[in-house]
C-alpha cells in the first residue's frame, strides 16, 4: 500500500470504451471462430469504433442487477464512489452481449436448432440486454438479428457488424445516463450531498463510455465543483481530496484530448489552489504532501503524453515544472515523515489497515472506519492506532528514490526545453537527494558534473554550497583525492565560506597531508560519521597510495599560480628567464616542498625546479604573492623554435611519512576564474591607482601569463651596406655594391651571402629578374632571380669585404631585393661555449624604369610625312631617342655620344624600297639596334643592345615618276635652269600633257604647254630656264601634269614629287662690297 496508495487506479486512467461481450465463440478449438475473434480484436486502429471486446463462455454469469432503490428517503450514503464501480462498467457489465450461433439455413433439423437458439437467447436476455428483445421465433427484434456469412470478406462484415454493435452500446449507455439522472429528483441537499457528486461522476463516466467527451467534460466539471461543496472535516478530507484528484485528472485529460491545453492548465491551477491548504490531519501531514506530489506528477504525465501526441510546449510551460513541483512536494513529504514518524513505536496489532474484504469499499476512506461519515471518528482508540500504523508504514517509504525519479523526469524535460540552468539546479537537488540516501558515489558524480557550470557562470555562492555538499560526500566515503580537491576549492577565492570554516577546512587538509584522519564535516549524520571514521582509518593504514597528482586548472584552488617568460623572445646567447608567481588564498600559511616547471623541451626541466632544503620547507603567506625566478641557456639547435610551458607542479606535503600531493597546472598556470579576472583588471579604472601600490606589491590580477617564448638567433655584429644608383634601367646590368664589415670580437666564419629577389613577391618577377656576380657580359635568361649561399670565406674582426651584385630587370616596376649575410661565431653564455649562427638581412626596394623612348617616322625626301611609300622611290627614316633616364646614357654606334636626361638624339636614313616580288602591300622595314650603357659605368662594362622593331610601311606603285634637277638656290636676275625628268614606270606608252602656269616671281623660257608620249621604261626630260624676279623663298611656277589615258593619277599625286619652292638670293653688288672693304 505504501507506494501505490497514491497511484491513480488504472480504470481511471484508461480511455473508457463501450464494453461488448461475445459469447458462443469457441476460439480455442474452432478455427472459424478464432478467425472471427481475431478480426474483431486485431488491428484496432483509430478509425475503428472504440469498443472493448471480450469473449465470454456461453454460461458466463454476469453481475446481478441489484434491486433498484425506489426511495432515497431514509438512505444515508456511506461514501462518494465505490472502488469497484468503474471496473464494473469497463470490464464486467457489458453494454451488449452478442450470441454467436452457427446456423445452416438448409439444416434438416432446423426446427430443433431454432428452439435451442431461442432458449439461449432467453437466458442471456435475463442477464443483460433487455432492450434488445424480440424476434420471430425467439422474441428478438429484426434489428438484433445479424447474419454473418462465413466468406472471404470477413473483415468487411466484421466492421459492419461492430458498427451496429456500437450503435446498440451507445443506446445502452444513453439509457444508463437517463437512469442515473432520474435519481436526482429523489435527493435532498442535506443528507445526500455525496450522492450528488457520485451521480454526476457516473453520468460523466457513462458519457465517456458513450464517447460523448464534451458532455463528459461538462459533468466532470459539475462533479468537481460539487466535491468542493462537501462539508470537509478531518475524517473525510482524504476522501474528498481523492475524489477531487480523480475528477481533476479526468477533466485535465479530456481538455488535453480536446486540444485545449490552456483549459487543462487552468483547471489544474484551480485544483491546486483549492486543495493546497486542505492538509487534513496534522499527524498525517505527509499524506497531504504525497497526494500533492502525485497531483503534480500525474498532470506532468498527462502533459507529456499530450506532447507526444503533437501538442507543442514552451520553455516556460512544460511538463518539467510539474515534475519539479512533484519532487518538491515529495521532499516536503520526506521532511514531514521524518518529523512525524518517530522511531520506536511498535506496529499495532491487529493490523488496523485490514478490512474484511481485503480492500476499501469507497475511494479515499480509512480502512478502520469505512462508511462512517460523521465528523468525529467513531472510535478514538482505533483512530490512534490507525494513525500510528500509517506513520510506521510511511517510515519505510523510499522517499529519496521517489524524489530522484521525479527529478530525473524533470531534468529530461528541461533539457528538451532549453533550460540548462534549471537542469543544473535539478541535478544539484538529485545529488543532494542521493547524499541523503547515502549513495555518495552517485551524489558526487552528479555534483561534480554540474559544478563546472556554476564555476563558469561565476555563481560563487551556489558553487560553494555544492562543493560543501560534495566535500561531505567525499568525507563520508573517505575518498582522499576528492576530499582534497574540494578542500582546495573551498579554501580558494571563489568560496564564500566564513573565515572560521575556512580555518577548519584548512586544518583538515593539513591533517590529510600528514596522513591523519580529518575532523568530520558538520551537518553530517552521526552514524555515518562513525562509519566514515573507520573508513578513513583503513585508508590511513593502507600504504602505497600516498602520492596524488591533482590537476587544478579547471577548479579554483586555494593556491593560484601564474608563470611567464620574461620576454616573448630570447636571443640564443641570452639566458632564458622565467618567473613563477604563487599566491595562497587560504587563512593559514601553506608550506610546500617543491616547485617545478615542465617545458616543451624536457631537457630544460632540470633548470626549472626549486626544492626545499632539509627540514625547511618553503611557505606561502596568505594574500601575499611570491615570485620564483628560473633561468637557463637555450640550445643552439632550438633557434627558431618555440619553448612552451606545459605544466607547473607544486608539491604539498612530503614523501617521507605523510602524503605527497602534486598540485598541477597545465600550461603556465591560471585557473577557471583567472581569465575573467584578468579581463576585469585590464579594463579596470583603478589601474592608475594600482600602479602606485605595485611598487610594494605586485597586482595579482593584472599579472599576465606568458606561456611561451621564441628562441631567436644572436644579434649579428656586422654591418651590411648597399650602394647603388636607383632607379634601375630596363635590361641594364644594374650594379649593387655590397660592403660587409665585421664588428665582431672574434672571427666570423663561413660568411655566406644570399642575394637577389626577395621570395614571396609576384611570381612574374622571378621570371623577369636575373642576378649574377659576373659583370663581364650581359647575363642571359638562365641566370637565377636569387643567388643562394655564395661563400665569402672568413671575416676577421674589423675586416671589410666588398662585393658587387648585378641585377638585370627585364620588366619595369618595383622589386624588393634581399641581401642575407650569414656566418657563425663562437661565443660563451654564462660560461658555456656555444657556436652561434648569426645572420643579417638587408632589403632594398628598387624601381626599374625605361631608359629611353624611341620614336620612328617615315618622311619623304621633302621631309613631308608619308602615309605610304612609292616603290623604288627614295624616302627617309627618322628615329628619335628621347632619354628618360635620370642618369646620362652613353650611346654607341657610328658615333659615341652622351645623352643627358630629357635629351633627344635623332638619326636619319635614306631608304628606297625595291619593287615588290609578291603582291603584298606592306613591307617590314627591319630593326633598329641601340647599344648603350650608363655613362657612369666602367669602360669595360658591357654594352646593352636594345632592339626596336621598325614599323611596316604600306607600298604603292606610281605610273609616272617625275623629279626635277634644280640648283640649291637661285639669284635675282640670274637665270637658273631646271630640268624635269618624267619617267614612265608602266608597261604602256603614256601620253602626258604638261603646262607651266605663269608666276609673278619668275620669268621663264621653255615649253609652256606640251603634249608628249613616253615609251614604257623610258624617260623624257624637259628643260626650263627660270629667271627669278624677287628674292626670298619663292614658289616655283607650277607644273601641271595630267595623264589623259590614266585618269586615276592626277596632277596632285604627281606634284608631290616635285619641288615647290626655291630660295632666291638677292643680286650681288660688287661696288658696294668694295666700298665696305674700303671703309
Amino acid at each position, binding site marked *: 500500500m505504501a507506494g501505490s496508495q497514491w497511484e491513480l487506479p488504472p480504470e481511471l486512467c484508461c480511455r473508457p470504451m463501450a464494453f461488448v461481450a461475445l459469447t458462443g465463440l469457441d476460439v480455442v478449438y474452432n478455427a472459424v471462430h478464432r478467425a472471427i475473434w481475431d478480426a474483431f480484436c486485431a488491428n484496432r486502429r483509430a478509425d475503428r469504433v472504440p469498443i472493448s471486446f471480450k469473449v465470454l463462455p456461453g454460461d458466463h454469469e454476469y453481475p446481478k442487477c441489484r434491486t433498484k432503490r425506489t426511495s432515497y428517503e431514509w438512505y444515508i450514503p456511506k461514501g462518494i464512489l465505490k472502488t469497484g464501480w468503474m471496473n464494473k462498467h469497463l470490464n464486467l457489465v457489458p453494454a451488449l452481449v452478442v450470441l454467436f450461433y452457427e446456423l445452416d439455413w438448409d439444416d434438416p433439423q432446423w426446427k430443433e436448432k431454432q428452439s435451442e437458439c431461442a432458449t439461449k437467447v432467453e437466458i442471456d436476455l435475463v442477464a443483460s440486454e433487455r432492450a434488445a428483445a424480440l424476434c420471430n421465433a425467439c422474441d428478438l427484434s429484426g434489428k438484433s438479428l445479424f447474419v454473418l456469412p462465413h466468406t472471404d470478406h470477413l473483415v468487411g462484415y466484421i466492421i459492419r457488424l461492430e458498427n451496429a454493435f456500437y450503435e446498440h452500446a451507445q443506446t445502452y449507455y444513453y439509457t444508463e445516463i437517463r437512469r442515473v439522472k432520474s435519481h436526482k429528483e429523489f435527493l435532498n441537499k442535506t443528507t445526500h450531498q455525496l450522492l450528488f457528486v457520485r451521480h454526476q461522476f457516473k453520468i460523466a463516466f457513462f458519457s465517456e463510455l458513450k464517447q460523448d467527451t464534451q458532455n463528459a467534460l461538462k459533468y466532470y466539471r459539475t462533479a468537481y465543483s460539487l466535491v468542493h461543496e462537501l462539508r470537509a472535516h478531518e475524517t473525510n478530507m482524504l476522501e474528498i481530496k481523492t475524489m477531487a484528484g480523480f475528477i481533476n485528472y479526468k477533466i485535465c485529460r479530456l481538455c488535453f484530448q480536446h486540444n485545449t491545453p490552456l483549459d487543462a492548465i487552468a483547471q489544474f491551477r484551480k485544483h491546486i489552489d483549492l486543495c493546497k491548504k486542505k492538509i487534513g490531519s496534522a499527524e498525517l501531514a505527509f499524506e497531504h504532501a504525497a497526494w500533492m506530489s502525485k497531483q503534480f506528477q500525474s498532470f506532468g504525465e498527462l502533459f507529456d503524453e499530450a506532447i507526444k501526441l503533437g501538442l507543442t510546449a514552451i520553455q516556460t510551460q512544460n511538463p518539467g515544472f510539474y515534475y519539479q513541483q512533484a519532487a518538491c512536494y515529495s521532499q516536503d513529504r520526506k521532511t514531514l515523515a521524518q518529523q512525524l514518524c518517530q522511531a520506536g513505536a511498535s506496529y499495532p496489532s491487529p493490523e488496523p489497515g485490514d478490512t474484511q474484504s481485503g480492500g476499501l469499499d469507497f475511494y479515499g476512506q480509512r480502512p478502520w472506519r469505512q462508511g462512517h461519515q460523521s465528523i468525529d471518528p467513531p472510535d478514538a482508540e482505533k483512530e490512534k492506532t490507525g494513525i500510528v500504523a500509517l506513520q510506521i508504514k510511511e517510515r519505510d517509504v523510499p522517499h529519496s528514490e521517489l524524489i530522484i525519479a521525479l527529478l530525473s523526469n524533470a531534468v529530461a524535460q528541461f533539457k528538451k526545453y532549453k533550460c540548462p*540552468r534549471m537542469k543544473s539546479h535539478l541535478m544539484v537537488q538529485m545529488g543532494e537527494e542521493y547524499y541523503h540516501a547515502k549513495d555518495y558515489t552517485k551524489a558526487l558524480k552528479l555534483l561534480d558534473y554540474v559544478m563546472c557550470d556554476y564555476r563558469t557562470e*561565476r555563481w560563487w555562492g551556489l558553487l560553494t554550497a555544492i562543493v560543501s555538499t560534495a566535500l561531505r560526500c567525499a568525507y563520508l566515503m573517505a575518498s582522499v583525492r576528492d576530499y582534497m580537491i574540494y578542500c582546495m576549492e573551498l579554501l580558494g577565492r571563489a568560496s564564500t565560506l566564513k573565515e572560521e570554516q575556512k580555518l577548519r577546512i584548512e586544518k583538515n587538509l593539513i591533517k590529510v597531508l600528514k596522513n591523519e584522519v580529518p575532523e568530520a564535516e558538520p551537518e553530517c549524520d552521526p552514524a555515518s560519521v562513525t562509519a566514515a571514521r573507520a573508513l578513513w582509518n583503513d585508508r590511513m593504514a593502507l600504504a602505497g597510495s600516498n602520492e596524488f597528482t591533482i590537476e587544478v586548472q579547471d577548479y579554483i584552488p586555494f593556491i593560484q599560480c601564474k608563470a611567464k617568460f620574461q620576454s616573448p623572445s630570447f636571443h640564443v646567447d641570452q639566458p632564458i628567464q622565467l618567473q613563477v608567481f604563487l599566491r595562497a588564498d587560504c587563512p593559514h600559511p601553506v608550506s610546500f616542498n617543491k616547485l617545478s616547471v615542465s617545458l616543451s623541451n624536457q631537457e630544460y626541466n632540470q633548470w626549472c625546479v626549486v626544492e626545499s632544503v632539509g627540514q625547511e620547507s618553503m611557505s606561502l603567506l596568505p594574500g601575499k604573492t611570491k615570485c620564483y625566478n628560473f633561468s637557463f641557456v637555450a640550445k643552439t639547435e632550438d633557434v627558431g623554435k618555440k619553448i612552451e610551458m606545459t605544466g607547473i607542479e607544486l608539491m604539498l606535503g612530503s614523501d617521507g611519512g605523510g602524503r605527497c600531493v602534486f598540485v598541477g597546472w597545465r600550461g603556465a598556470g591560471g585557473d577557471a576564474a583567472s581569465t575573467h579576472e584578468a579581463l576585469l583588471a585590464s579594463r579596470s579604472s583603478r589601474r592608475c591607482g594600482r600602479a602606485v601600490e605595485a611598487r610594494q606589491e605586485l597586482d595579482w590580477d593584472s599579472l599576465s601569463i606568458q606561456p611561451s617564448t621564441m628562441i631567436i638567433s644572436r644579434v649579428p655584429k656586422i654591418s651590411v651596406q648597399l650602394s647603388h644608383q636607383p632607379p634601375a634601367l630596363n635590361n641594364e646590368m644594374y650594379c649593387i655594391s655590397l660592403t660587409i664589415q665585421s664588428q665582431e670580437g672574434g672571427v666570423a666564419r663561413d660568411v655566406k651571402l644570399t642575394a637577389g629577389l626577395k621570395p614571396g613577391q609576384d611570381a612574374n618577377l622571378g621570371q623577369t629578374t636575373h642576378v649574377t656576380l659576373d659583370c663581364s657580359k650581359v647575363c642571359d635568361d638562365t641566370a637565377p632571380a636569387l643567388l643562394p649561399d655564395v661563400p665569402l670565406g672568413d671575416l676577421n674582426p674589423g675586416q671589410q669585404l666588398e662585393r658587387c651584385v648585378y641585377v638585370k630587370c627585364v620588366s619595369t616596376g618595383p622589386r624588393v631585393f634581399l641581401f642575407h649575410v650569414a656566418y657563425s661565431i663562437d661565443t660563451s653564455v654564462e660560461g658555456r661555449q656555444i657556436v652561434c649562427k648569426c645572420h643579417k638581412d638587408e632589403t632594398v626596394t628598387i624601381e626599374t624604369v625605361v631608359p629611353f623612348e624611341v620614336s620612328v617616322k617615315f618622311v619623304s625626301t621633302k621631309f613631308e610625312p608619308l602615309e605610304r611609300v612609292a616603290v623604288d622611290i627614295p624616302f627617309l627614316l627618322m628615329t628619335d631617342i628621347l632619354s628618360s633616364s635620370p642618369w646620362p646614357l652613353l650611346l654607341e654606334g657610328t658615333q659615341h655620344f652622351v645623352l643627358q636626361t630629357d635629351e633627344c638624339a635623332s638619326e636619319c636614313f635614306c631608304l628606297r624600297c625595291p619593287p615588290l616580288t609578291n603582291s603584298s602591300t606592306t613591307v617590314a622595314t627591319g630593326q633598329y639596334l641601340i647599344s648603350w650603357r650608363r655613362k657612369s659605368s666602367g669602360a669595360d662594362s658591357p654594352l646593352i643592345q636594345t632592339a626596336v622593331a621598325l614599323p611596316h610601311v604600306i607600298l604603292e606603285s606610281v605610273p609616272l615618276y617625275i623629279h626635277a634637277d634644280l640648283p640649291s638656290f637661285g639669284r635675282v636676275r640670274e637665270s637658273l635652269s631646271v630640268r624635269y625628268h618624267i619617267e614612265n614606270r608602266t608597261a604602256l606608252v603614256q601620253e602626258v600633257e604638261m603646262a607651266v602656269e605663269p608666276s609673278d616671281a619668275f620669268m621663264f623660257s621653255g615649253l609652256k604647254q606640251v603634249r608628249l608620249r613616253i615609251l614604257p621604261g623610258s624617260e623624257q626630260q624637259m628643260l626650263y630656264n627660270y629667271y627669278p624676279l624677287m628674292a626670298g623663298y619663292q614658289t616655283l611656277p607650277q607644273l601641271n601634269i595630267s595623264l589623259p589615258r590614266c585618269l586615276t593619277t592626277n596632277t596632285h599625286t604627281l606634284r608631290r614629287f616635285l619641288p615647290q619652292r626655291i630660295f632666291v638670293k638677292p643680286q650681288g653688288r660688287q661696288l658696294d662690297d668694295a666700298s665696305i672693304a674700303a671703309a
Partner: protein
Amino acid sequence: MAVCIAVIAKENYPLYIRSVPTQNELKFHYTVHTSLDVVEEKISAVGKSLGDQRELYLGLLYPTEDYKVYGYVTNSKVKFVIVVDSSNTSLRDNEIRSMFRKLHNSFTDVMCNPFHNPGDTIQSKAFDGIVSGMMVQTASYT
C-alpha cells in the same frame, strides 16, 4: 513588494543579489539563476526579429508554486530580476515596471561612479537603499 532582487552581469554572474533574510538565501540564488534560462531565451528570440528595438521589461519570466519571477534587461545586457511572493496578488504589472525603472536608474548612478569598476559586484549604499525600499519589510530587517 519583492522578496529577492538581483542584478546579473552581461556574462550572467551576479553583481548584486539580496533576498529577505528570513528565508533560505540559497533558494533565491537558485531561483534567480534558473530564471536566466528564460531571460536568455527571450533576448535571443527578440534579437532575431526586431533588431535593436526591444522593450527592456521582459515581464513575468516564470511562475513557481511560491514565487513569481520578473525580468528586465538593459541595453548593455545587464539583467535585473525581481522575485515576488505568489500570494502577493495586489502587485500589478505597472508597479513591477516602475520598480525595475527605479532599479535601473539607481544602477546607472552606480555605473556613473568613477570609482566603480564595471564588472565588479555592486557595493553602494544608495543602491542598497533603493533595493531596501522595494523589499518586503520584515521584522528582522531594518
